């Protein structure tokens, strides 16, 4: 199966939430796309950035490291980074790598946004 280059699309959902929709594979070649998309999302100054992995079919260990560096950037600027749409396999990987200790993982975008809305109204 040929590798799918990562593409990222940014959407505002609520004034305080920006969604980064990811399509393709998160590997060493995804660095520029991921960092550019994150920078663009961050530029809108949201409280929450949601990574939507619904259309991501492959993440390798370099990809996990890229996600960790995004998480570090988010924590540095006191933003919440959430994820949704991961397959069961990658939820397990997020647990093994202990990324899930610092990043809430939701089954889909609706539940992530509902939770984000709850958090921001408190």
């Amino acid at each position: 199966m040929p590798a799918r280059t990562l593409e990222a699309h940014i959407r505002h959902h609520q004034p305080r939430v920006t969604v980064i929709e990811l399509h393709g594979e998160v590997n060493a070649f995804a660095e520029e796309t991921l960092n550019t998309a994150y920078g663009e999302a961050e530029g809108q100054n949201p409280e929450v950035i949601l990574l939507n992995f619904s259309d991501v079919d492959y993440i390798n260990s370099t990809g996990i490291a890229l996600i960790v560096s995004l998480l570090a950037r988010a924590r540095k600027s006191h933003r919440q980074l959430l994820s949704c749409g991961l397959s069961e396999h990658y939820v397990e990987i997020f647990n093994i790598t202990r990324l899930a200790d610092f990043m809430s993982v939701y089954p889909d975008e609706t539940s992530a946004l509902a939770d984000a809305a709850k958090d921001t109204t408190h």
Partner: protein
Amino acid sequence: MTTPSTPSGDMQPRDATYWAQQGTNLKLSDVPAGAINLNVEGRSVVGPLQGFGKMWQKTYRVRLVDALVQPTEVIATWKENFQSFWPKGNRFYAPLTGITPGEVALLNLKTGGMPLSTGVLVLYADDESFTLMTPQGHMFAGWITFSAYVDDGATVAQAQVLMRANDPIYEMGLTMGGHKQEDKFWEHTLKSLAARFGVLAPVQIQAVCVDPKRKWAHAKNIRHNAAMRTVLSAPSRWFHRGRKQ
């Protein structure tokens, strides 16, 4: 912080066999002869988010110019001979099954002249890369990914470390020469790997501070410090060795 997930109807992902299946607590399948098995069994693995110090991404690269070698061949050679590329005085006791996902390797190292017994989990391994993850008590919390790829007509071998010092003592050590020592370690390793393919080439080093903040909430990691535990347990190991003889 994990909410139950996930989209249903998933097929077996193509990388399922590349990742470690075991949970966060390390289990050793065997202890190679001569290895000191300390600070490994039952320890949790820790990623860079669980560490204490500044978060660094350090990349070491060597271009295997003029060597007609494919990335998969570089990685196969690296996995098979991992220990032989290390500087003298440091031992990597590979698992009997080799560098395969989920296996645990013991490390007996010298850091700043002090002995350090620890280990690593093989978190990920495919034909073009493999990743080791450290346990509690190791010098740093994080991952080292070894990979090879083709760039501008040449195969490049790379080691990339994403890490935080595990506790304040290690952070002080890294600041006071530890980073330099680590750079020398991986520089030696990559030069030795390149030499295996008949290449004499410089190693490029790039260090990026991903997060300059120290995580004081994780200062208590010091209770697992493997260097202190290795030194403190030395008299008892000598005593037991003496009794056996």
